[in-house]
């Protein structure tokens, strides 16, 4: 336990947004080497649980600890760069090219832009590097998002619907990224409604229904 | 706060110093000019506001014009106002007139009465000499 502290631990966490109770009394521990699949229907709270784990979501009750930091304290700022979060909506700047988007990301972590270029090549987008993000297909944008993971090599992966809009090559890429992170002692959380895909990748799975984990 | 103390504290100090400086220089932030200031700028034909106290005994009303003098501690200016003065206009009260300086008299077309912060039920108690100077 002391040698292997959990990557993340939620204890009695609930989340509200406006008039809806999104998560209720969630207890969850994610250990190094875990690849946790989270399943649930549309609107069951899957995305919110990812945002909680990314220290982005203010919680109503409970305690959240991520990579050893209390997610409600200022410590969260120090661990955030080690978290790799890919939402279900691409976060690219539409006016910038893929290379510029990745370059911005790399530089924000103090890395060189050449890292971004090679990451784009690794996800098979070398030919589209100079294309504006809004002129790329949804699948290409998703690939570019995964290139971000290759740039910063986070230890905690949070993937929202990782396989959606991806072709077979890209799906293999996602699987490889998850395996690599987990094998190196990190952890991954994959939120999806596509059980078959994720079950083959996950080391364990949970169901979320009406904001409650089962 | 502690994270940015290095920036915020000097910035606050700087702002404070500048505010003090600004308040001391604030002669520019005025609603009206005093008679002394007006006389110092005789040549100008710009539209100005002139404020001060109506000199008792100087009011002369005829043909829709009101002539009177406005004074501060050091100087008095002759004003010729075209129009009906406000209700409270009287000798000894503060006024602000708007118009242009012609060299001999100040031709005004707009008059505002400026009452001070004194309130007395009896006119005898008014503290005139004091305020003739300090207010303007």
């Amino acid at each position, binding site marked *: 336990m002391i040698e292997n502290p959990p990557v993340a631990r939620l204890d009695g966490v609930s989340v509200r947004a406006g008039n809806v109770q999104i998560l209720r009394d969630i207890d969850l521990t994610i250990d190094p080497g875990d690849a946790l699949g989270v399943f649930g229907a549309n609107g069951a709270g899957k995305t919110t649980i990812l945002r909680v784990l990314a220290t982005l979501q203010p919680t109503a009750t409970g305690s959240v600890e991520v990579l050893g930091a209390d997610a409600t304290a200022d410590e969260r700022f120090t661990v955030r760069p080690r978290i790799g*979060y890919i939402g279900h909506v691409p976060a690219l700047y539409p006016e910038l090219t893929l290379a510029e988007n990745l370059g911005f990301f790399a530089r*924000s972590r103090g890395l060189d832009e050449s890292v971004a270029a090679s990451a784009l090549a690794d996800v098979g987008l070398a030919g589209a590097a100079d294309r504006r993000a809004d002129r790329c297909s949804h699948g290409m944008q998703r690939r570019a998002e995964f290139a971000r993971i290759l740039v910063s090599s986070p230890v905690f992966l949070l993937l929202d619907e990782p396989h959606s809009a991806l072709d077979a090559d890209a799906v293999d890429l996602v699987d490889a990224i998850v395996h690599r992170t987990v094998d190196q002692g990190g952890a991954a959380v994959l939120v999806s409604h596509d059980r078959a895909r994720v079950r083959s990748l996950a080391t364990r799975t949970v169901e979320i229904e009406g904001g409650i984990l089962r | 706060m502690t994270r940015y103390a290095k920036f915020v504290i000097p910035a606050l100090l*700087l702002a404070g110093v500048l505010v003090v400086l600004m308040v001391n220089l604030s002669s520019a932030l005025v609603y009206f000019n005093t008679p002394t200031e007006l006389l110092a700028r005789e040549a100008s034909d710009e539209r100005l506001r002139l404020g001060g106290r109506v000199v008792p005994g100087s009011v002369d009303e005829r043909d829709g014009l009101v002539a009177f003098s406005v004074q501060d501690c050091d100087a008095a200016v002759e004003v010729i106002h075209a129009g009906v003065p406000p209700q409270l206009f009287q000798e000894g009260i503060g006024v602000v007139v708007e118009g242009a300086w012609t060299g001999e008299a100040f031709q005004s077309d707009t008059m505002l009465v400026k009452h001070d912060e004194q309130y007395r039920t009896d006119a005898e108690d008014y503290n005139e000499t004091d305020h003739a100077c300090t207010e303007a």
Partner: protein
Amino acid sequence: MIGFGSQAALIARRDILRERRSGEVLWVTLPFGAIALLLVPLAVGTDAPMLRQIGPGIFWVVVMLFGVFISIRQTSSETDAQRDQLALSGLDPAAVYFGRALASFLFLLGFQLVLGFVTVVLYDISLEGWLILPLTFVIVAAGLSLLGTLAAGIVATGQNAAALVPLLVAPLSIPLLIGATQALEALQLGRSSLTWVLMMIVTVIVLAIAGVLSAQPLQETR
């Protein structure tokens, strides 16, 4: 981790690049501002001496009102996903604030220069005392960009943002408006503009402090 200045520069570079591609300021806001300058004389009458007199004031009003749209344009169009990624990037929220403001500052400066030229031409303005203008342009651009970035952060995205931000910004930009108009007028009348310049600088400093202190809590609000 990179230094505070480089972080701000990174954000500013991103915003400038985005503007260069989208051209929102150049092709939408700027022409709209110029049209406003053209409309005023039609509304108040094309009396040359009067226009000469009110021209500088009209110019500054247009700069304030349209400048708001320039200074909020990217903060308020940011998507939730982009905001999440920025929060995770580890960039200092205060640096992000200054970076955004820096980009807006440059756009506003350009906006003022072009509209200033249009005003001089359309209103036949006397340029006596124009030496103060570069200074007022810089201070107004700085103040308005800091104010707009701050207000956009407070309001964040949402259907009302486009209407609400100008409501918050307009009254608070008045010290800048008064300072800018009076500084020039004071010089033209042979008086000192120092008080007005100081007033604008104080406003800019106060806005910078407010922006720095609120940057982090605002980033963490959704």
